[in-house]
């Protein structure tokens, strides 16, 4: 057995490489990788865990019941609160009484933690006439022309909400 030690060295080396590979693999590959497929099974739970940021009208009506009732009784049903005002999660957190103390700086910087509304842009998202928009939708070509046509006076500060109530679509007198 002149060459026996060659084999011993070779297999020893292979064994070391194999053990090193298995050790690294055990460290690098997560435990639940491959139990449901070629991915980390717990990633599904993590993806489902995140908190929804849009809370829905019911959450809004907890504090703003009056506006919500007006909206429900009016004709402007398809857009909901958060369509124009933005997601309410942070707003609720900031405005709830125990959080007001916790985030004084944030409240100072951004009082309501909601998307600021312009009173015109939110309307024009849907109601600006474009060629591709279905004609059944009530839409205007131009805010200035619309104001003048309806007998109003248009200034740079004019807003849709000057005349229209966005929550009910009732035209203010």
């Amino acid at each position, binding site marked *: 057995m002149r060459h026996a030690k060659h084999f011993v060295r070779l297999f020893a080396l292979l064994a070391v490489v194999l053990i090193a590979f298995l050790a690294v693999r055990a460290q690098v590959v997560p435990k639940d*990788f491959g139990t449901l497929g070629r991915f980390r099974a717990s*990633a599904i739970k993590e993806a489902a865990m995140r908190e*929804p940021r849009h809370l829905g009208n019911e959450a809004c009506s907890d504090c703003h019941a009056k506006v919500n009732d007006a909206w429900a009784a009016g004709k402007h049903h398809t857009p909901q609160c958060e369509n124009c005002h933005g*997601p309410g999660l942070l707003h609720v957190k900031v405005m709830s009484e125990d959080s007001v103390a916790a985030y004084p700086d944030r409240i100072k910087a951004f009082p309501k933690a909601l998307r600021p509304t312009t009173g015109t842009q939110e309307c024009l998202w849907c109601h600006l006439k474009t060629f591709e928009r279905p004609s059944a939708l009530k839409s205007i070509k131009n805010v200035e022309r619309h104001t003048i046509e309806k007998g109003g006076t248009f200034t740079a500060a004019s807003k849709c909400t000057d005349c229209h109530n966005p929550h009910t679509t009732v035209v203010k007198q």
Partner: protein
Amino acid sequence: MTSPADHEELTRRAFLEKCAEAGAHTFLFGSLFVTTAMMRLPQEATSRTVGPRGGTAKEVIYGFVVDTTKCIGCGSCVRACKAENNVPDGYNRTWVEQYTFFPNGEVIVNSPNGGENGFEDDLPERNMPEEIGQLPVRGFFVPKLCNHCIDTPCIQVCPVGASYKTAEGVVLVDPQRCVGCGYCVQACPFGSRFLNPETNTADKCTWCYHRITKGLKPACVEYCPAKARIFGNVNDPYSEISQILATNRVQVLKSYLGTRPRTRYIGLDSEVI
């Protein structure tokens, strides 16, 4: 190299040759073992039958229908999606495309900021080019999002197993595993994925997985004022989406690619790509 006589004549060259031979055998049998082991990996739990009455009653298979005939192009879906999922500026998980057709056969597709700020009435400007010079003949909006394909090119190319499909048929990214190589971004034929510059991982529409698992609708569906987006369990014959799939003729984007999308479209024009 078995008999003692061989050992006496074994040269260094012959020894190395034999070693290489043994190595090749190990590799071949090893790869065979690995291949069979991979074939035995648990397959995706979803059933292959997808339809209003397909699958068994217990399984939840989500489906999505976009009714392009109802879309008014307001961009509510885009804004709701970006706010709900904290999508960085300049990137979109869902977007709205504006198609305008001119009499000379020219089609203009427009999607400023993905439709996040709505669409302008820029018709006078659009008529300015000499080569068009005519009023458009027809136009419409097409909302786009991840198709959550059954045969996904994006999951196949992921080298680290960061992209996967849940039992409900939702295609998701594991941000912990993702190395941000961008293969999936290139593999997706619908442009639904992007590399998020904040996390440096692949990002995409999840059908708001964190909402649908809590019984809510995806943000874009909930806040579509035109009800152009319908989401639900296609395995429940009484769900809204099953009723819509049963009573409408639906189409998928790029059906010739064979990715079998779970997002289906009503009123899809042949010019829409």
